[in-house]
């Protein structure tokens, strides 16, 4: 399995950002409005974070439909938690990603006994060469299997770094760890993925 090393991360990693954004401070101001179930605030927060939550879920799950369900459920739970007097205190994003992580766990627990599950593959274009499509599909499935062989925490960190495009500090915030711990975890996750993928060219 070969991945071209001439590509930059930007080619494959569209969500990548170089530095932290200021959305966490905005959250605090909006939370009180969201607690009152203000529809404008809700729509604004939803549209701001849905892409991140969806990307994270889709990365973890490899299934677009389930990812949509998980991302959507995270927002519903946000509302219910806030209404119950709980929910995020400062960072809506951290809370949503954390909830999506739990929902992904729950999903896998639910389908644990299912022998096979559909993998999310980029659908073949109308003019795609069938052989090329098959090869790409097999490679995608192999990659997905390798990813799923990682521990949940390793999957979590890769989903945040490479699926969500969060930088080191943001990932540390989201996982409630320090940056050094994330570096070590990221190293172990990539090393494990490399081992699971097999030797280059295999």
């Amino acid at each position, binding site marked *: 399995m070969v991945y071209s090393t001439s590509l930059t991360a930007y080619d494959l990693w569209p969500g990548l950002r170089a530095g932290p954004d200021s959305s966490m401070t905005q959250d605090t101001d909006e939370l009180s409005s969201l607690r009152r179930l203000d529809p404008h605030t*809700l729509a604004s927060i939803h549209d701001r974070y849905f892409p991140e939550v969806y990307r994270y879920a889709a*990365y973890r799950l490899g299934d677009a439909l389930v*990812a949509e369900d998980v991302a959507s459920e995270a927002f519903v739970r946000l509302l*219910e938690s806030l209404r119950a007097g709980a929910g995020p205190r400062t960072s809506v994003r951290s809370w949503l990603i954390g909830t999506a992580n739990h929902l992904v766990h*729950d999903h896998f627990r639910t389908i644990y006994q299912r022998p096979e599950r559909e993998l999310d593959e980029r659908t073949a274009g109308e003019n795609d060469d069938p052989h090329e499509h098959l090869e790409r599909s097999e490679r995608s499935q192999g990659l997905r299997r390798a990813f799923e062989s990682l521990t*949940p925490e390793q999957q979590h960190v890769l989903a945040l770094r490479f699926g969500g495009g969060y930088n080191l500090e943001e990932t540390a915030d989201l996982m409630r760890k320090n940056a050094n711990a994330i570096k070590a975890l990221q*190293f172990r996750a990539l090393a494990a*993925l490399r081992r699971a993928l097999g030797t280059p060219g295999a």
Partner: protein
Amino acid sequence: MTDPLSDPLQRALESLAQGRTVEQVLAAHPDLASGLRPLLEAALAAAQLGPREVPAGAMARSRRRALARAVGLKAASPRPAPFGLWPRWALAAAALVVVLGLGLDGMSTAAAQSLPGDILYPVKIVSEELQLRLAAQPDDRLNLEALYSQRRVDEVAGLLTLGRELPLSFHAVVQKMGPTLWTVGGIPVRIVPETRMVGEILTGMTIEVDGLTQADGTFLAHELHLESFDTLGPVTSIAPDEWVIGSVPIAIDAETWIEPEIRVGDLVLVRVRVLEDGSRVAESILLFAPPTPTPPPARPPWTAAPQSPKPTTAEATETEEAAETEASDEEDGTSGPGGAATQDSGEDEDTEDEPEGTDEVKDEFTGVVEEAGGGQWIVSGRVLQVTAATEIRDDPVVGDTVKVVAFLQPDGTWWAEKIERED
């Protein structure tokens, strides 16, 4: 434990993020290239796993769902906390005024018997608030909370008996789960396609039930929310912030009560609380001693046998469903997430109590067949054992109205002596 490559890897990933290629990055670190190359290749592979785009339709659907839920939450009927917006001191003062006005005896006999919707019901709630506030010890407070939680369940049962329709919520243990009817804390809970489930709910778990009491003696569930459950299993690993029980990781926090000297391999009983965001935290972890083959304790002579009230639909259903649950505890498997067994000691006590003094109790009622066939029928939510000795007349099928004659059995189940279709 930190690998010497973890820092260079991070710097290499940052270089990639700035637009350099892998070859360019490796060329800048020739001494580390052999170690970094496979990791960067894995990073490129990892970057291919995610979706390139977020479907606009998915986002629109999710936004609609969230907004609809917000509308629903806003429109939801208030819970039985009529003075929820009052300051705490005002609650206490109001309770005091009411208590003084009615006199303590008047309070206990009038307000304490009230149900949601009654004029005096707010007095009861305020009085409970006051007692909770005055509880000196945490244990006292916990005991009161448990008592009041059970009161809410009893109030639902009371409203079902009276056939009143009111939006309410209560917390109780799931005793039986059928396709359309569950038993939760002895209350027959109607499940409809619109019923929303939050969490993976199984028999033996404690849930919050939000819904509506109905005139037919059932509680129509709008939402079922998993709150806590017990899980039994071996300790696989112990860490400061997480234990693994069997194969299930469970978070530990500062309030988790852990019995001393538990080690890996020990069998433990864990009370797990499910938080609003779906995460699970252990409330307590206790060593589980294997049961010894001792006879069950005899009922103390001063305690009365539990009643099996009749004859309203709600109560009848409640009794039978509970009995059915108890009879089928083994089948239900009391199986929790990860395959670990679950149980609730409170329910076990009921199981021991239920059959005593209930022989030869006969009930006749008319209802609609909801499930038929095999050894078990459900008629208007009531579960009936059907044997070869049961007399079945006029071939009733699901949907038919039938007249039933049933007897309560020593094991707590109801055996149908006769089921007859009514024209």
